C-alpha cells in the first residue's frame, strides 16, 4: 500500500514536470513581448534619454521578468551563435540577430547593425525632421521584414541622408553602412556548413524555466502583463465565484443523478430506464452555451419573461451578509442550472453503466438468493462495487473548480476563473493565462492521484498486484 502510494507520487511529480515543460514551451511561443510592452508604457511622459540609458532600462525590465536569461538549462544552437544572444532584451531583436547570423555568418556585424538601428530610431524620434520620414518608415518596415533585400533598401535611404552637423548620427550612419556591407559580403559566400553542426550549451540554474517553475511552486505567480497587478490576487478574487458555482452544481448533480442512475440500472430495460437514458443523452448533446443563451433570451430579458438577471453578480450595495447572499444566489440560479444539467447527464450515464455491469455479476445473484432485501443488495453490494467510475468522476471536481464553467461564466459575465482566463487570452496577458493553465493541470493531476488512492480503498487488490494495475 505504502509502496503503491509512493510510486503514484513519483509518477505525479514526473508527469507534472513534463506538463510544465510543455506549457512553458507553449508560453514562449505566445505573441507579443512583455518587455516591449512595458517599455512603451513607461516611456509615456518621459524626458529624452540616451541610448545607453534606454538599453539599461530595457535590460532592467527584462531582468525583472527573467527574460534576459536563456530559456532552459540546455540549449542546442549552431556553432556560430555566440553566447551573448541574451544581451538583447527584446525577443524580436534576439530572433532577428539569430536569423542574420544564420544567413550571413557575421555575428559581430549583425549585433552592430541591430544596435545601430536602435540608436537611429531613438535619435530621430527625439529630433523629428521632415527628411527623416522615409527613414522612419523603412525602420518600421525592417522590424517585420528581415531579409537582406529590405536591409539594402534601408541602406540606400540611409546613405542619401546628410546629417550635417549631427556628428553622432553621422558616425552611426557610416558604421551602419559598413556593417551592412559586411553582412552582404557574408551572405554572398552562400550557405555555410558550420550551421549544420550544433553546439550544446549548459546554462545552469539561471534560466527562464528554472525561475518560472521555482516561483510557481513557491506560489509567486508574478505580475499580470496587462495591468501589472499580481496574478495571485486576481486569481484569488476570481476563484471564489468559480468554486461556488461548480461545487453547488456538482453536489446537485450527484444528489439527483445517483438515485436516478441506480434505479434505472435496477430496472434495466424498463420504460423508466429507456426514458432516463434518452433524456440524459439529449441533455448531454445540448450545447451549454446554447442553453445559456436561450435562458437569457427567454427568462432574463424584458422581451419575454424577466424572472432573473441576465448576468453579473448584482451591485453589492448591501453590506449585510444575508441580503448580499440572497442577491448573489438570485444571480447564480441560471448559471448553476446550466452547469448542473450537463454534469447531470454525464453522471447518470456513468452510474447507470457501472451499476448495470455490477448487477449482472454472480455475487449479486448470490446475495439475492440468500434472501437479502432488494434495497440491501442494491446499495450495499451493487453500489459499493460500482464506485470505480464515480471515483474517476469525483477526481474531476478538483480541476472543475478552475476550468469547469468557462463558457457559462463568459455568457453570464461572472468574474470567475474561466472569464479571467478568456479575457487574459483576448488581452494577450500570457503570464496570467499560463498560470491558470498550470493550476488547472496541477489540480487535474492531483485529482487523478486522489482517485488512484481511493481506488485502493474500494478495491485493495489493486495495490497488491505486481505492477499496481498500471500496465498490463
Amino acid at each position, binding site marked *: 500500500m505504502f509502496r503503491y502510494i509512493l510510486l503514484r507520487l513519483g*509518477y505525479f511529480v*514526473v*508527469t507534472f514536470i*513534463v*506538463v510544465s515543460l*510543455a506549457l512553458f514551451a*507553449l508560453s514562449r*511561443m505566445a*505573441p507579443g513581448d512583455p518587455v516591449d510592452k512595458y517599455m512603451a508604457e513607461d516611456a509615456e511622459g518621459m524626458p529624452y534619454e540616451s541610448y545607453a540609458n534606454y538599453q539599461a532600462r530595457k535590460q532592467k525590465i527584462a531582468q525583472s521578468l527573467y527574460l534576459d536569461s536563456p530559456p532552459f538549462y540546455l540549449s*542546442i544552437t549552431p556553432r556560430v551563435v555566440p553566447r551573448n544572444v541574451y544581451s538583447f532584451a527584446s525577443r524580436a531583436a534576439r*530572433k532577428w540577430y*539569430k*536569423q542574420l547570423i*544564420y*544567413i550571413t555568418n557575421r555575428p559581430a556585424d549583425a549585433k552592430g547593425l541591430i544596435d545601430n538601428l536602435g540608436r537611429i530610431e531613438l535619435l530621430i524620434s527625439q529630433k523629428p525632421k521632415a527628411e527623416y520620414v522615409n527613414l522612419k518608415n523603412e525602420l518600421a518596415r525592417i522590424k*517585420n*521584414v*528581415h*531579409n537582406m533585400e529590405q536591409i539594402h533598401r534601408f541602406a540606400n535611404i540611409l546613405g542619401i541622408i546628410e546629417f550635417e552637423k549631427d556628428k553622432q548620427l553621422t558616425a552611426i550612419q557610416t558604421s551602419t553602412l559598413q556593417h551592412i556591407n559586411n553582412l552582404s559580403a557574408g551572405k554572398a559566400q552562400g550557405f555555410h556548413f558550420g*550551421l549544420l553542426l*550544433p553546439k550544446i550549451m549548459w546554462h545552469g540554474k539561471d534560466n527562464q524555466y528554472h525561475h518560472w517553475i521555482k516561483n510557481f511552486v513557491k506560489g509567486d505567480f508574478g505580475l499580470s502583463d496587462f495591468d501589472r497587478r499580481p496574478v495571485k490576487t486576481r486569481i484569488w478574487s476570481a476563484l471564489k465565484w468559480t468554486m461556488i458555482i461548480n461545487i453547488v452544481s456538482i453536489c446537485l448533480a450527484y444528489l439527483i443523478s445517483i438515485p436516478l442512475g441506480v434505479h434505472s440500472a435496477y430496472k434495466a430495460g424498463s420504460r423508466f430506464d429507456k426514458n432516463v437514458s434518452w433524456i440524459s*443523452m*439529449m441533455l*448531454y*448533446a*445540448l*450545447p451549454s*452555451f*446554447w442553453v445559456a*443563451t*436561450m435562458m*437569457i*433570451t*427567454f427568462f*432574463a*430579458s424584458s*422581451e419575454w419573461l424577466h424572472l432573473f438577471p*441576465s448576468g453579473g453578480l448584482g451591485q453589492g450595495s448591501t453590506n449585510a451578509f444575508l441580503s448580499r447572499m440572497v442577491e448573489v444566489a438570485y444571480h447564480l440560479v441560471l448559471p448553476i442550472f446550466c452547469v448542473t444539467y450537463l454534469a447531470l447527464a454525464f453522471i447518470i450515464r456513468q452510474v447507470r453503466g457501472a451499476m448495470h455491469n455490477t448487477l449482472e455479476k454472480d455475487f449479486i445473484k448470490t446475495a439475492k438468493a440468500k434472501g437479502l432485501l432488494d434495497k440491501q443488495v442494491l446499495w450495499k453490494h451493487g453500489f459499493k462495487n460500482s464506485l470505480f467510475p464515480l471515483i474517476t468522476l469525483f477526481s474531476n471536481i478538483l*480541476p472543475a473548480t*478552475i*476550468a469547469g464553467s*468557462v*463558457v457559462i461564466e463568459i*455568457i453570464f459575465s461572472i468574474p470567475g476563473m474561466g472569464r479571467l*482566463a*478568456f479575457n487574459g*487570452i483576448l488581452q494577450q496577458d500570457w503570464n496570467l*493565462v*499560463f498560470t*491558470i*493553465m498550470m493550476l*488547472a*493541470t496541477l489540480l*487535474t*493531476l492531483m485529482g*487523478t492521484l486522489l482517485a488512484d488512492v481511493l481506488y485502493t480503498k474500494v478495491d485493495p487488490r489493486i495495490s497488491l498486484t505486481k*505492477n499496481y494495475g*498500471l*500496465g*498490463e
Partner: protein
Amino acid sequence: MGSENRHQAERTLWQAVLHSSAAKGSAWFIGLLLFFSIFGDFIANDKPLYAKVEGKTYYPIFNSYAHALGLSDIKHPDLGSDWHDLTFDKSLWPIIPFSGSTLDLQNTYKSPFTATKKNNRFRHLLGTGVLGKDVAAGIIEGTRIALVVGLIAIFFAALIGLWVGAIAGYFGDHYFRLSWIKIVGLIIGLMMSIYYAHLSFQIWSVEDQSIFMQGFLFFSSIAVGLLAAVFIFGLSHLLERIFRIKSSIAVPMDILLMRLIEIVNSIPALLILLVVAGMFEQRSIWIVIFIIAFIKWTGIAKFVRAELLRIRSLDFIQSARATGLSEWSILWRHAVPNAMTPVLITIAFGVASAILLEATISFLGIGIDQEVMSWGKMLAQARDKSSAWWLAIFPGMMIFACVMAFNIIGDRIRQLSRLHE
C-alpha cells in the same frame, strides 16, 4: 479469424446498427448534412442557377465554380449590380436565394416568414441576423464548417490514436525490444530532427513572411527534421548490423505511452483550445482542426489499447506468430483490423464532441475566419439581440441535432458490440 469472416461480421454489425429507427434517422440526418455541405452552394446562393437577362443566358453559380477552378477567366457575368435587383426574362434560383455572407441592409433582424422590405420575391425563410444576413443560408454554410472540422479533426485524431494505442496495447511493457544502439539513435535522431526543423524554418522564413508561405515552410521544416531523424536512425540500424549487436532492451511502451496520454489529458481541453487558437494572429480553420485532433486522440488510443490487450492473447494471433510473420505485420494486418469496432464507437462520439468544441469557440469569437459563417457564430449574434429568438433557436437546433445524431450512432454500435460479446 479470416478477413472474409470479418467483413461479414462488419456487414451484419452495420445492418444491426441501422435496424433501430433512431439510428436509421440519425444516419439519414448525417447523410443530409453531408449533402448540404457538399452541394451547399446550389442550395443557398445569392446568384441564380440559371438566368436569362436581356436575351442572354447565364449560369452564374456554375460560372463562379469554373472561375475558381481556373477554367473560366470571367469571375461571373458582370451585370453591374446585385443579382437580386435585376429583372429577368427567366430565372431559376436556389431554394435559398442568399449566401451566408450576403448583406441585406434593409432587412436586418427580420423574423421568419415575414414579408421583406425591398423585394418580396426573395424572402428570408428563417429570418435574418445582423446586417441582414440570412439565417437559413448561414445554417447551410455552417454545416460545412461543422462537418469539416468534426470529420477531419477526428480523422487525424484516429490516425494518432490508432498508432499509439496499438503499440501500447500490443507490445505492452515487455515485447517492444530494441538494441541499445537503436535507442541511442532514436534519442539523438529526435533531438536532431527538432534542431534541423527549427533551423530550416528560421532560415527560410526570413525571406517570405506571408501566412501561406509560413504554413508551407512549417511543413517543409518538419520534413527536413524527419529526414534527419530517419538518417540518424538508419545509421544506428547500420551500426547494429555491422557490429552484430544482438542484445536488446525491452522498452516499456505501455507505461511510456500511457504517461503521454495522461499528460495530454491533464491539460484542460477547452482552455488549451482557446489559448492556442488565440495565440495565432491569423485565423484559420486548420489551426482549430489540428488542436482538436491533438486533444481528442487520447480517447481513441485508450480504447484501442484496451482492445489490443485482449486481442493479443487470442489464438489467431498466436497462430499467426507461429507462421513466422513479423510482429509489425501481425499487428497491422491481424490485430488492429479486429479492434475496429471500439474505434468506430469513439470516432462517432469524437465527431460529436469535436463539432461541439468548434461551435463553442466560434461562439466565443475565437478560431474560425471572420468571413465564414458557422453555427456557433450565429448563436453569438443572438446574445447581442435577445428579442431575435430565431437567431438562438435555429442554429442551436442544428448543433443539437448534429451532435445527437453522432451520439446515437455511437451509442448503438456500443450496445450491439456488447451484445456481440
